Structure formats: structure tokens, C-alpha cells
């Protein structure tokens, strides 16, 4: 993975020497290039912070929405279906615009860019999380519920100590995917002015007129970020397996 990254970047650097490229805008050996690089890279802070905050909220909301979806009562299940279908139908960008520009008029509460972005991302993702949790919980055999009941555990304890720990292990790869997806979708929050990776790249392009180099760096930033996250998720999966042997 790192090798690929080095190969890719050295290829780009070398071809940059050939002509069309103007790497000076992001050349760390020049003061201006260094400033630009720092400006771009520090956007990662908001990309990560926003994505992590959003995924934590969406996991919690997703779980709360998944639970009624498991009910035997059709009326209760309908809550889950309506939520999932409606939220899933709205494009994330539209949701971001609606939360940021629309919601204040509706509720009188103005959210700053960060929280508007987090809320929109979390809302959108929660529908997918709900489906992931529902599938994960449904994959646990009936015998597990019955064993829990036979030792008199109530619903809450059954979920907390028996069903969810097993379900979460099974859905961990899917949750990892969602986090990657979230990191990518957070780029959309740039449209309302959030100073994350994409917004900063855009602003730099406006002042430096070197979209090729700057967006290439942006691509690499996302690539690195997501490779790290993927490796982290795999590490977590391995650790959970190791804990059981």
C-alpha cells in the first residue's frame, strides 16, 4: 500500500518535471508551497472530525431505528420502513442544503456549518446503518434469544450482552465501509463553506490557478486517509477475532 503510494507520487513528481505540471504551488521546499500544503493538509482535521462525529451519531440513530424494524407488530415495523425509505431517497447534497438553509427557517435554530454538515451526513447515513443493524441482528439465531430468555435476561440485557455484541462483530466490515463512504461524502459539505479538505483545495485553486496539481494532492489526501481507515478497521476485526481464541 505504502509502496503503491510512493510509486504513484514519484510518477507524478517526475512527470511534473517533464512539462505540463507546475508542482511549485505545493513544493514543500519553497515557503509558499509549504504554506499551501499545510493549508490543504490541515483541512483533514475537519474532514475526520466531521466524519467521526457523524458516524457516531448515525450508528446510534441507526440502531434506534433498526430496533422497531425487528418488531413483530406491523405498526411498529412501519416506523422503521418509513424512516429508511424517506431518508434513503434524499441525495446527501440536497440534505446538506436543506439542513443548512432550510432548517433554521423551520425551527428558528441556526446551526453552524460544522453541525449542519454533521447532522446532514449523520441523518443520511443513519438509514443505511439501520439496514445494516437490522440485517446483522436478524442473522443471529433464535436459539441465542431463547438461551438468554431461559436465564431470565430481559430484553435490554439480551440485546446488550448477547445479541448486539455478536451482531456488531458480523457487521464490522459493513460499518467500516460506511466510515469510508462518510469520509468521501463529507467533501460535499464544502458547498456550505466547511473548511475541510475539498473546500481548502477549491479555495487554493481560485488563488493559484493550478487545479491539476492541487486536485491531485486532494486525491492523494483522500487516498491516504481511506487507506489508513481501512487498515484500522481490518486491525479491529483481527483484534476481535484474536480476543476469542
Amino acid at each position, binding site marked *: 500500500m505504502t509502496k503503491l503510494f510512493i510509486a504513484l507520487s514519484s510518477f507524478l513528481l517526475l512527470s511534473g518535471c517533464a512539462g505540463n505540471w507546475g508542482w511549485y504551488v505545493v513544493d514543500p521546499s519553497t515557503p509558499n508551497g509549504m504554506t499551501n500544503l499545510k493549508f490543504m493538509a490541515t483541512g483533514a482535521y475537519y474532514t475526520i472530525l466531521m466524519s467521526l462525529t457523524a458516524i457516531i451519531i448515525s450508528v446510534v440513530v441507526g440502531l434506534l431505528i433498526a430496533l422497531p424494524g425487528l418488531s413483530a407488530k406491523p405498526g411498529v415495523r412501519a416506523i422503521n420502513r418509513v424512516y429508511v425509505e424517506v431518508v434513503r431517497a434524499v441525495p446527501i447534497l440536497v440534505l446538506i442544503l436543506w439542513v443548512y438553509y432550510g432548517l433554521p427557517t423551520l425551527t428558528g435554530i441556526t446551526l453552524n456549518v460544522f453541525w449542519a454538515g454533521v447532522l446532514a451526513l449523520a441523518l443520511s447515513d443513519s438509514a443505511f446503518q439501520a439496514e445494516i443493524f437490522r440485517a446483522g441482528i436478524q442473522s443471529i439465531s433464535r*436459539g441465542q434469544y*431463547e*438461551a438468554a430468555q*431461559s436465564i*431470565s435476561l430481559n430484553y435490554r440485557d439480551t440485546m446488550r*450482552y448477547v445479541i448486539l455484541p*455478536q451482531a456488531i462483530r458480523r457487521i464490522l466490515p459493513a460499518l467500516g465501509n460506511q466510515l469510508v463512504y462518510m469520509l468521501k461524502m463529507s467533501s460535499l459539505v464544502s458547498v456550505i463553506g466547511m473548511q475541510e479538505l475539498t473546500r481548502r483545495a477549491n479555495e487554493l485553486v481560485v488563488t493559484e490557478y493550478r487545479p491539476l496539481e492541487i486536485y491531485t494532492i486532494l486525491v492523494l489526501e483522500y487516498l491516504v486517509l481511506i487507506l489508513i481507515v481501512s487498515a484500522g478497521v481490518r486491525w479491529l476485526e483481527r483484534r476481535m477475532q484474536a480476543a476469542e481464541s
Partner: protein
Amino acid sequence: MSLGTDSPIIKISEVSKFFGEFQALKSVSLDVGSGERVVVCGPSGSGKSTLIRCINRLEKHEQGEIIVDGVTLSDARESLEKIRANVGMVFQQFNLFPHLSVIDNLTLGPKRVYGLSEKEAKARAMEYLERVRIPDQADKFPRHLSGGQQQRVAIARSLCMEPRILLFDEPTSALDPEMITEVLEVMTELAGSGMTMIVVTHEMGFARKVADRMVFMDQGEIVEIAKPEKFFTTPDSQRSRDFLQKILNH
């Protein structure tokens, strides 16, 4: 039809259970005395599992009444939790919690239901692991144990709740032959300790040795209740005879 006992700890009166249109239990009545060992047998699909699963309300009966240790089964949560803490169940497929070590499988119930501390729960768990003769496996995970060991852990998990009644649903049917004995030995020992037991099993050797009464079911009905000496030699009904013939010549 029911055979009376003096102090029934379980009273099942005219219980019927439906799965949609299909009637799995047809007005079944049975009293089980405190400390009694009842073995339930009968052909596949006769309602044996359904009957014992009604006793701890894993299945809800539609008609009739079940009273366990003085508490009438209903949807009331309080009575349900009381009954389930008092009635343990051992399943054919063990149903251990695969993500928990053996010791954690055993301590979960006592900690959550009785509020025991980690230390108390562990002490109790070790005591019962010794009873089922696998104290050395405490820190392993279920999937690293043999089937026979897993089933003994499942029995210990039930015992940790210190129930007055234990239900067994074909506890040895999923086991390789060489492991059946170790589980039956543990069950025989339990029977000697005064535990009230209802055991669904095809292990007729065990039934002969341990059962106070045999219950024979067919097509959702209790066809015959008899002492094992009588049931295995001169059963009253033709259906019992046919069943015994099949199972004993098998």
C-alpha cells in the same frame, strides 16, 4: 389425562397451542411433583418440545392454564422473569453464547438477574463447572470445546441460576455417540440431587434408570403416563407399543 401428584410444582391444565391453523398441543394436562423426574418421549412432531417450551413460555399457549411454582403463566413481565429464573432449560443445540468465554457464559445471568458481584458470580460458576466436571475449561470459548463439553457448560449455565426446575429438550441428540454418556452421567447425578426435571429424550436407558414417570406423546396429545417399569414392559396403548418397538429395535 393426568396422573396426580401430591405437591405439584408444575400444573398444566388442558393446554392447547396453535401454530396458525395447526394445533400442536391438544388440551394437554400434566402435573409434575417437586423433585420429580419426568421423561417425555414420542415420535417426531408429536409436540414434546412445544410442551416443555410452554412451561418457560418460550411458546405461548392459547388455551388452558400453566402454574409453575405457584405462579400462573401470563404476559405479565414480573411473573415471566420470576418463572424463567426458576426454570432452567437445556437445548439440543446447546445455544451457548459464542462471543463469551465459558465463565462469562455462566456469570452473565447471575450478575444481571440476581445482581451478584463479579466475584460472587465467578465463585458460583466455578462451583457448577466442577459439578459438570470441566472446571479447567473456564477460560476457553465455546467453539474450542467438544459437543459434550459444550452441553455440560450449558447445563452449568442453567444451574448457575439455581432453578428449581430444569427442562431438557433432547440434550444428547446433537452429540456424537461417544459424548452422550458424559452428558447423561451429569444429568443422572442431577436427578439424584433432588432437582425437578422434565427431559425430552430418546435415550431409553437413561429414562429407565432415572425417570419417576414416563410421558408418551403423539400428535399433540399425551397418550400415556406411566411408571417406567410399566411403560417399557406393558404399555397400555397401541401407539406406545408401536413407538417403543421402533425405538428399541433401532
